[in-house]
């Protein structure tokens, strides 16, 4: 076996040094009655070429944007990934390292994450960012728990236009905790219903959680929402599933948001069937000690040089055990590195330009679809790179029909909002050419009602 260096002679000599007669004798503490008395029922070992063949076969059974014209978004986005990203994260000093517990030989990871934290604070307009969480949804659930800790209140208002899987994750995390979750509806224009909000916000409210943009691609009126939340002393948690939008949109921090979380997959990571991506998590300095997750800070070494270390660990499970701010141990280190490399490449001007391309392509598609008979755009509020389409007939049947033409036109919304049988969510990024958008529009036009 090529990963196991032991020769028969090595094994013999090592057993002799240990002072046992056989490999079986190493397991004498495992009682016979719990030992497995048969080989594992798994296939026998494959050679490297056979493994490759097997995996290629699986890969070939999937649709991708090479095989289909895709307008799928809804929390995972198809953006261009510069070649540099994969080249750099393939440096095995990065990807075969562990969490940087020994800072003297982990400065590469530590400095990169310090840069990541800096980029995230600037992107979100916040003061502190942690070293990352599992994904946007779990980061959002952790933000809910943090808001409860920081305010010592237990009611959390969650926009029903927040990504449905983020909402489900929040519900899971709060399942057995003393947290009351209340959903806030949206209005006909696709934005949060501020009248309903006004009647639900009170002195017991820990936070309001809202998508920015929301699940329908709609840009919420964050300023008004922050003001309403702050009036009763509640925190505003802004969840960003598509962070490319922040290249163009006013940052949640600028509006006064208290916690900003989101999914960083758009920054240099493939859609990869939904993972791994990276959850980002940023907040105000004054509540940093309630934050979950790893934090990297600057310090000095014994020679007076600047270096970076894991810090404020007294919030964490390995020190505080059941009193920790979260049970999270790892971060998504390599994905955070991908986001860092990507954001450095795209830079100050590039993220803005990229966001403008997304907006322009999406608007082009939206206007063309709105002009088709049998189709309309139900939500009138401004959107970024996705929008909801309403069809005269059954949306799922329409989408299935388009699959036959190798077009993945969008996500049927019925599975998330049972009443939305005629609606679907279309995402158009910079990756779609005008010609491809025209193909989509022509296919929709030709679809049977």
């Amino acid at each position, binding site marked *: 076996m090529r990963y*196991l*260096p032991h020769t028969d002679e*090595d094994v013999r000599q*090592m057993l002799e040094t240990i002072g046992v007669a056989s490999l079986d004798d190493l397991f004498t*503490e495992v*009682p016979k009655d719990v030992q497995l008395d048969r080989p594992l029922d*798994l*296939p*026998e070992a494959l050679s*490297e070429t056979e*493994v490759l063949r097997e995996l*290629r076969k699986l*890969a*070939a059974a*999937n649709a991708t944007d090479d095989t289909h014209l895709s307008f799928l978004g809804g*929390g995972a986005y198809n953006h261009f990934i510069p070649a*540099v990203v994969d080249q*750099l994260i393939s440096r095995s*000093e990065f*990807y075969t390292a*562990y969490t940087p517990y*020994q800072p003297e*030989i982990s400065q*590469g*990871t530590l*400095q990169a994450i310090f840069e990541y*934290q800096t980029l995230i604070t*600037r992107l979100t307009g916040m003061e502190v*960012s942690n070293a990352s969480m599992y994904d946007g*949804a779990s980061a959002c659930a952790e933000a809910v728990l943090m808001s409860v800790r920081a305010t010592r209140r237990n009611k959390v208002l969650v926009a029903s236009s927040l990504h449905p899987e983020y909402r489900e994750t929040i519900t899971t995390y709060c399942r057995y905790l003393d947290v009351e979750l209340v959903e806030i509806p949206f209005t006909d224009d696709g934005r949060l219903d501020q009248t309903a909000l006004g009647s639900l916000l009170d002195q017991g409210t820990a936070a309001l959680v809202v998508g920015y943009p929301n699940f329908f691609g709609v*840009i919420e009126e964050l300023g008004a929402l922050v003001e309403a939340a702050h009036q009763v002393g509640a925190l505003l948690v802004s969840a960003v599933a598509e962070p490319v939008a922040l290249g163009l*949109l*006013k*940052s949640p921090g*600028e509006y006064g948001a208290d916690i900003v979380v989101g999914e960083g997959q758009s920054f240099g990571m*493939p*859609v990869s*069937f*939904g*993972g*791994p991506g990276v959850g980002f998590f940023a907040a105000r300095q004054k509540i940093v000690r309630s934050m979950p997750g790893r934090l990297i800070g600057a310090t000095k*070494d*014994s020679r007076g*040089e*600047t270096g970076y270390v894991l*810090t404020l660990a007294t919030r964490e*499970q390995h020190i505080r*055990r059941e009193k*920790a701010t979260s049970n999270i*141990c790892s971060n998504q*280190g390599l*994905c955070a590195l991908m986001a860092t490399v990507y954001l450095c490449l*795209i*830079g100050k001007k*590039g*993220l803005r330009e*990229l966001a403008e391309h997304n907006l*322009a*392509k999406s608007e082009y598609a939206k206007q063309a679809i709105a002009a088709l008979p049998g189709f309309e755009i139900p939500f009138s509020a401004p959107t970024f790179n996705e929008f909801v389409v309403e069809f005269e007939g059954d949306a799922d049947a329409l989408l299935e029909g388009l*699959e036959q033409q190798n077009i993945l036109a969008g996500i049927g919304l019925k599975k998330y909002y049972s009443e939305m049988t005629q609606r679907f969510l279309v995402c158009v990024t910079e990756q779609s050419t005008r010609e491809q958008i025209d193909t989509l529009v022509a296919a929709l036009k030709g679809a049977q009602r």
Partner: protein
Amino acid sequence: MSGVATQGLILKEKLIFEHSEPGRKGYSLPALDVPPEALPEELTRDDLGGFPEVSEVDVVRHFTRLSTWNYGVDSGFYPLGSCTMKYNPKINETVARLPGLTGCHPHTPERLSQGSLKLMYDLQGALAEVSGFDHVTLQPAAGAHGELAGLLMIRAWHEAQGNSRKKVLIPDTAHGTNPATAALCGYQVVPIASGGSGVLTAETVAEYMDKDVAALMVTNPNTLGLFESDIREICDIVHAGGGMVYCDGANLNALMGIARPGDMGIDVMHFNLHKTFSTPHGGGGPGAGPVGITRKLEPFLPKPVVVKDGESYRLDSDRPLTIGRMRSFHGNFGVLVRAWAYILTMGSGGLKRVSQMAVLNANYIRARLEGSYHLPQPHRSLHEVVFSDKNLGGDCHTIDVAKRLLDYGYHPPTIYFPLVVQGAIMIEPTETESREILDEFCDAMISIAREAKEQPELLHDAPVTTVLGRLDETAAARQPCLCFIPEQGNK
């Protein structure tokens, strides 16, 4: 001085922000082929203040230099206990990058994502066979996330029976994630003292077990590297008292093909694919923390569940008793691909050989170091061995040994964990290291033990060969500086 460390050219590197020059760019976009659009001005930001403007070359050189300040498994021996830092096979990286796998969108209809779904279904089956459980969910993103899913299922099961038990028993040798997870499930944590032998006895568990105990969380082999040999009896006691047994699967690398937690009576266990199944740790993630469960917990699995209908695969979301969703989409799929490639490569016999060689290596290190370091537990070790810093001499402590090891060219073991051992030095060599590497490492450890007595300043001043000297962690926590602020000049 023995060891593999030597001098090399180490290049200085500033923060990327300090390379920034207005007008430089590191990206290219195609010309816009549709009319430009703008949002209302009140919705748009001014600019991305503080983002760098650098060329592609700047970025490549910056991160390449940073990488040289890191130490990975590919650099050398990494005996970090409880972390299973085995070799990360390169074919896994290649297959995980196949465009048909990376490019499949999570919202792709099931009929067009059969490759991904089949891989997940088959991986669930293989993990169930290795562990002896009836079902496996792949959704959790990491070990601690798997613990949360597992304990939520246990609680949901209790609630479904109308039991609202309040307590979870956790030995004092457990990982910190265990009590933190129990708290997140609304449970009160009751610590169990492991006692002198380091192993949990059936009598102790019986003493603690009562009608208010929802579950016992164990780690087997435990964090001292010892097999919990009363495990079957312990499970019987907990079950008889109406509770469930959760196993932290961090140390499964000792048991593949040898014994199966499901057969021992354990009800729930998480796997760390980034430990046992060779996926890279990535400097702290992404990992994956699938969870195996017995049949009676099946209704509570996180949704969706990957199922097979005839010859095709689908995601089942119609699960009324589910604990819900742990995250968005289907798990860290890219990590699952690597683990599946590993299982295919090793096969049934290979996985057993992995555990045998991991245990052989740990016991070899133990035999070679027993004379130089204090060994607090007499039992036979499995995949890892824990020494203490007792009797080191020269006012040297575990931290000094760890830092001195850096000068010899090794990543130190896990230190000061488990908490029950004074100055714990927890060594897990894994199976992918040869006898020669282990000998070199043991020679270094023995040499350091001698230095502690004869020239303790070598330990206190260590490390001297690294890019930076010992870092002041206290100062970092007292005055947190968590991002670059130009005026302060971090560097």
